[in-house]
């Protein structure tokens, strides 16, 4: 599927939830295919540095860590990417 449009706009939902409630989500946020990718690559999502909108882990984040050139921050709650 296309990544283009998805990067053009922040995903409203996780950003909204996190910002709206002021509650830091306890779980790593990632869409299902990204979760699967991580699992397939043996990557622990909690170790991935999340750069997606609303603190979500993106496919690239997983690949970055899997390729060994990322530094996980360990909590998966990176600040929301600038919109």
């Amino acid at each position: 599927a296309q990544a283009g449009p998805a990067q053009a706009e922040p995903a409203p939902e996780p950003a909204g939830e996190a910002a709206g409630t002021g509650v830091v989500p306890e779980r790593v946020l990632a869409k299902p295919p990204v979760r699967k990718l991580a699992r397939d690559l043996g990557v622990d999502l909690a170790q991935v540095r999340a750069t997606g909108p609303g603190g979500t882990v993106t496919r690239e984040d997983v690949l970055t860590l899997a390729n060994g050139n990322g530094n996980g921050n360990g909590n998966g709650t990176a600040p929301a990417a600038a919109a």
Partner: protein
Amino acid sequence: MPNLPLAKAINAGLRTAMERDPKVLLMGEDIGRLGGVFRVTEGLQKDFGEARVLDTPLAEAGIVGTAIGLALRGYRPVCEIQFNGFVYPAFNQIVTQLAKLRARSQGRLELPVVLRIPFGGGIGSVEHHSESPEALFAHVSGLRVVTPATSADAYWMIQQAIASPDPVVFFEPERRYWDKGQVETDATLADVAPLHRARVVRRGEHVTVAAYGPTVRLALEAAEAAAEDGTQLEVVDLRTISPLDVGTVAESVRRTGRLVVVHEAPTFGGVGGELAARITERCFYSLEAPVLRVGGFHLPYPAARVEEHYLPGVDRVLDAVDRSLAA
């Protein structure tokens, strides 16, 4: 290959079914001399007589209840419910009897009854004439629920519904009655697509849009518009609501990763929720975005003057597509 308005295609399908099988009867309010308020049965009483095209008393439970009795002796009654909002007096007969007598008799009683119900809005009508109650029937086991979106499907699906050994609720999209389409009348029932299969009516790689009945054309219009912006929508005409052909949709979603469901009925408790749940179960790891639903608000269907605000339009579909792509 005639070019027929959808209403005329149903008329032709009814005629063909009546010619083929003398046990096919039509019953309903004003379907005989008047030819029905939408003229779907026009000319049939004249050609097949009053014994086969019955103007019944004004009582929907009576229509469905006596149709059950007729079916017990081998008839195949096709009942017209004049408008969607007037099916409820028959609901008891439909839910507790029509849907269940086969099971209650261990399959010994067969009720090949078809209920034709015009549904959906957009024709500027008054209250109770534009509703979309299909979810209420889909939830009831023992019924089959289908809806054609084109003249060709209308012609063939009504015949398949009549041929079905099970009760079929056949929803007819009111605002498509006058839409014309080519109908291949030379095929045979065995040749055409099965009644309970969805169909991909436009290919596209970015987002799958599932629609049925009146919203199929809407989805196609949205696809045209999206294509201008470089987004390719894959449009699935569900055709069958119960059973749902989840497989065809899942196959598409596994490719696109995204699904938008469009219907006129309120989203709350509607068919879209079922499809969303099923697709999410089946395609969880393919989903780049949650399944989004575009449908009516959870309101009584508002009459003519306000319906344009109520009905899902191209913009709402495109907005959902955008939201899906943005996730």
